[in-house]
């Protein structure tokens, strides 16, 4: 079972827009909320109210500062399973608990046969798998396999919980194996990229790069009234106009 399917009919996955993600963690908490009651439940926490609270979460959002000086940017970086086409985490599994589905390419762990050896987490360069200390088995993103095909849910809810929760539309779900799908077109249009392609695991999930800032070119040669100094006297009204000038020229 840990042998990979030769091909998958679909390549379901996520496209994450690093330009619009605001790092609000809504995808993180909605993921935890859904999955602690869904497939492979529970997602246990250790010492949730103690000195060292930690637990199994399937989605983490980092914040990085990228670049130097006035053009530097804060980039919020959601990180979860990329549902790789050739996942090393699946082939290292000694029990067959880890598997990749032939029908849609989703990588799952069977919580009833996982022995909790943690080797899959060692094999993943993306840190996507988190061991559940309370349940004794490995947990990972299921792409909300129990939502996306769930006919008991209204149609608009048949998408992963993280995508449903995102307030800025930074997360997109679809078939990345179909070049005509909305997500594939988005990836082509925005120059979506793979994380660590040199490992050869062929991630299905794609990341969209932050867009060039419109005022990026102004960063090194400041031209706003404050910096050019002529009209800035420091009066409240002046500062208001300077602020307005900045906002309007974005």
């Amino acid at each position, binding site marked *: 079972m840990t042998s990979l399917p030769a091909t998958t009919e679909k390549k379901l996955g996520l496209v994450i827009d690093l330009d619009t993600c605001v790092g609000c963690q809504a995808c993180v908490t909605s993921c935890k909320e859904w999955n602690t009651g869904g497939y492979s439940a529970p997602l246990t926490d250790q010492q949730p109210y103690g000195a060292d*609270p930690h637990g199994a979460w399937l989605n983490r959002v980092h914040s990085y500062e990228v670049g130097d000086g006035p053009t530097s940017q804060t*980039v919020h*970086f959601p990180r979860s399973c990329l549902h790789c086409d050739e996942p090393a985490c699946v082939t290292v599994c000694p029990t067959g608990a880890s598997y990749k589905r032939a029908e849609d390419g989703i990588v799952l762990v069977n919580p009833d046969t996982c022995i909790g050896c943690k080797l899959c987490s*060692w*094999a993943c360069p993306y*840190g996507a798998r988190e*061991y559940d200390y309370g349940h004794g088995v490995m947990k990972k993103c299921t792409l909300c396999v129990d939502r996306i095909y769930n006919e008991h849910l209204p149609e608009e809810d048949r998408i992963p919980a993280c995508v449903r929760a995102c307030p800025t539309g930074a997360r997109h779900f679809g078939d990345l194996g179909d070049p005509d799908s909305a997500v594939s077109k988005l990836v082509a249009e925005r120059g979506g*990229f793979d994380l660590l392609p040199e490992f050869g695991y062929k991630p299905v999930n794609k*990341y969209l790069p932050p867009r060039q800032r419109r005022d990026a070119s102004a960063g090194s040669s400041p031209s706003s009234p404050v910096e050019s100094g002529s009209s800035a006297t420091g009066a409240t009204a002046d500062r208001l106009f300077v602020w307005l000038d900045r906002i309007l020229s974005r």
Partner: protein
Amino acid sequence: MHPAYSVILFTTASGGGYGLLVWLALAGLLDLVPTEPWLGFFGFSLAFALITAGLLSSTAHLGRPERAWRAFSQWRTSRLSREGVMAVATYVPAGLLGVGWVFLGHTSGLFALAALVTIVCAVLTLYTTGMIYASLRTIPQWHQPLTAPIYIVLGLASGAILLNSMLQVFGLCAAWSIWLAIACLGLGLLLEAAYWQTIDGALKQYTVEAATGLGQMGKVRPLERPHSQPNFVMREMGYRIGRTHSLTLRKLVVWFGFAVPIASTLASFIPSAIIGGVASLLAVAGAAVGIVLERWLFFAEAEHVVSLYYGADRA
């Protein structure tokens, strides 16, 4: 990488056990020692005890030890599964050889074949153990050609020290077993030195810029962590020890794991049963401490690529 004591105990104890099986089988095959029942009984019991203790200890690493039997099923793709299969399969020829040696007092015919198969199986088990680690591309310190040979040679060295010590105790000390232990230890020391040199000199090729794909925008620095306390990924894969600390530990590995056992084994040449006996036991004790430390360092010095997301600059 977090050094899990159950895995350290498994790889060192079972490693010594498989090494001892190799040398017992070779000694039986080539008639290097008398096939005396007590020697066989003691030798095979010690080897099986070490192997079994190690295997049981390894299940303590599992979240669900009661399901450990499932790990024998995926030998087609999983190196961990292959190790499990080989580890258990080795009991069969080794057990047969033990029966021939202890109960029938000979190691010829069918038992000679069992001895050959034991040697192949035991060495393959050590190899499969090493390859679990060597195959992980996510841990550059492990993913290199020296990893598996070190597991094999240190297993064989532990076995050779045990055999020599046993022959001392039984008054059967022979020059070949002394030289065998010294040769294995010398080779082990060479490989270990080469391993340390390799991991110290390796160019760390993975960067946080590559991991996030944001390199075109400039240097990437962590601003905010995704969580306040370390999670599983950080606890398991983000284990760090200081460089100076690790250099001290390496010296201890060289002293305990190699210098003390080599010197003590050489003392076996002194024609005194007491000095020889004490020295050979000292070799066993030194090697036990040194090789456990070596295995601990093997984990502690290994840096997982995922640490890039958590603030490591390069990995």
